[in-house]
């Protein structure tokens, strides 16, 4: 990681993504960006805006609606020494790429005895709200966390978005890079020069003593809001954003849970067989013999995401449900409910930071 910028500036998440790619394309002629609509005037919500103009159609180009084959194309180009960034406007389309991602990208280095590398990045966005519904609101990271050979990263703020994307481009392995649509307009302090945020190192967002909360992707921001509600009650939260899910920095999580003996994992995905289950299981394996340990998971309701606003609101964890779960874990009043005005979702507020 390079020296932090002496003059910090605030940058939106979406602009951090764009800046990371542009800087890497300038630095390395083997980097190219492709995917449906990356060179369209809307340019993936603006995250690829300007790349066509600066780097030309050879290095920024759209594709047919052929996700599986285009993933294979990225793999083949990567095997030849290029560094493709394959962009999907929604994570749901990765389901069409599963064969290439799981059977080829993840395994090529191993099954060919180390003789080939697959240095590719797969960018995709998780949707939420505005009634996006069943097929545009999924956090599917657990499916990829299951497969050795892939790396999975889900930055929750603009600083990590830039640093992780540069790290992903420079990584010699296939990296699934998960963005959250609601994070796009959020701002953080981001250095102008290039820098990397290494995978396998969790970010300590808050230091606290009463409970360890792990927030994944956008849930890291909702947990931040929940922590402020809990602070009003005198509950001190140790808040951790894993940043990368494969590799997963369990050391940081275990060190915290070892102190607090309470671990709440809030996932931006379903609970069943998910990232929260993995984190909870590892905590139980390592800490269960040392004494009492309270573990809980939160995530999407075990149902398909509806479009109607009232039901959709109940589908997701939110600052209220997170704070209530945490408060009960520390022995607080089970009937406590925060003031609704204070408990707005993080994205409904102007969010600055934490960097």
């Amino acid at each position, binding site marked *: 990681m390079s020296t932090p910028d002496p003059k910090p500036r605030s940058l939106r998440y979406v602009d951090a993504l764009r800046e990371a790619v542009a800087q890497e394309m300038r630095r390395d002629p083997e980097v190219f960006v492709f995917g449906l609509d990356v060179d369209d005037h809307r340019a993936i919500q603006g995250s690829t805006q300007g790349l066509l103009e600066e780097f030309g159609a050879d290095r920024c180009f759209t594709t047919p609606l052929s996700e599986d*084959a285009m993933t294979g*194309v990225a793999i*083949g180009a990567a*095997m030849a020494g290029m560094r493709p960034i394959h962009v999907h406007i929604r994570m749901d389309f990765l389901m069409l790429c599963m064969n290439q991602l799981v059977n*080829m990208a993840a395994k090529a280095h191993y099954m*060919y*005895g*180390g003789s080939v590398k697959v240095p590719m990045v797969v960018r995709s966005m998780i949707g939420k709200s505005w009634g996006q519904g069943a097929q545009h609101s999924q956090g599917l990271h657990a499916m990829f966390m299951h497969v050795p*050979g892939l790396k999975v990263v889900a930055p929750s703020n603009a600083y990590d978005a830039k640093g992780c994307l540069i790290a992903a481009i420079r990584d010699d*392995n296939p990296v699934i890079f998960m963005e959250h649509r609601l994070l796009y307009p959020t701002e953080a302090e981001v250095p102008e020069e290039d820098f990397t945020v290494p995978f396998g190192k969790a970010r300590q967002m808050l230091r606290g003593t009463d409970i360890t909360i792990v927030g994944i992707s956008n849930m890291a921001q909702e947990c931040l809001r929940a922590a402020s509600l809990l602070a009003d009650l005198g509950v001190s939260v140790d808040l951790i954003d894993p940043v990368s899910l494969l590799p997963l920095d369990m050391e940081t999580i275990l060190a915290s849970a070892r102190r607090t003996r309470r671990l709440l994992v809030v996932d931006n995905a379903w609970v069943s067989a998910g990232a929260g289950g993995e984190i909870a299981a590892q905590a139980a394996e390592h800490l269960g013999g040392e004494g009492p340990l309270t573990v809980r998971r939160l995530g999407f309701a075990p149902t398909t995401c509806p479009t109607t606003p009232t039901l959709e609101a109940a589908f997701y964890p939110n600052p209220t449900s997170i704070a209530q779960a945490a408060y009960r874990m520390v022995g607080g009043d089970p009937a406590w409910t925060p003031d609704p005005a204070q408990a707005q979702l993080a994205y409904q507020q102007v969010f600055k930071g934490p960097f």
Partner: protein
Amino acid sequence: MASPEPTDQETIARLYRGIARIRRVEERVAAIYPTDKIKSPIHLSIGQEAVAVGICEALRADDTVSGTYRGHATYLAKGGDLNAMLAEMYGKVSGCARGKGGSMHLVGLEQGILGCSAVVGSNVPVAAGYALALKRRGRGQMVACFYGDGASEEGGVYETLNFAALHKLPILFVCENNFLAIHEPLNRRWAADRLTERVATFGMPAQRITSGDIFEIRTAAAEAVAAIRAGAGPVFLECHTYRWREHVGPAEDYAAGYRDRADLEAWQAKDQVARLAALLPEDARQTIDAAIAAEIDAAVRFAEDSPFPALEELYDHVYA
């Protein structure tokens, strides 16, 4: 279509050596297999050698091939290391994938062998991506991508044909049509036997070769390669051929009832190994045969004498 006239003795000898070497290697593998020294599912190319050799004859050393799980012929025709191939099938560390890939994942980047895949058709888009990179490099290199008639039913293959034509990629698609996908004959899988015409609609030259004639395949490949190197974009060849042995394993399976021995006999009557052998003087053929036998003996010894990987290698190469 009439077969082009056989060319000079030197060429015939080279082609014979290529095709007979593959046949003898596979026959040796089939003989070893029941001993259980090779613990890897083997998909023999016996009967199909002419396609790989005829196509690879047209390629340069710095071109690349992409093969299927039935990839032994492709690997050897493109110059793959026989020692490394047999050691790979034995699971030895001296194998081309350090024993971690087995028979279905032969690879050799130094010889331009991009690797073979067990998931039908999954090599095809990867080959196109490699061709995309070669086009950008601008050194006139190209890819020959082999796949079977079964793979022609996979969606990703059609996605790839479209993309390759759209971007005028330097890639020769070769469909080895042996009329069988595992145990399913073509008429249970294709509504219409019009594969070549279907591919042509993507906007690339497409040709069907039904004879199995190595000279005809070689001539068609040479023309395709010339056009591809000139920047015309991809070309497709459908080459009819026939798998003499079972889908996986060393034996014949005509008693299973899904195909007719008469089909085998028709293809054996035009066996290209025997045909080329007959075009050579007896002493020249014997010299080649002796050299092949000695090479195979040495490769088997190499594989048997090589060590297995150390246990620590289980965790090597998960990440680069």
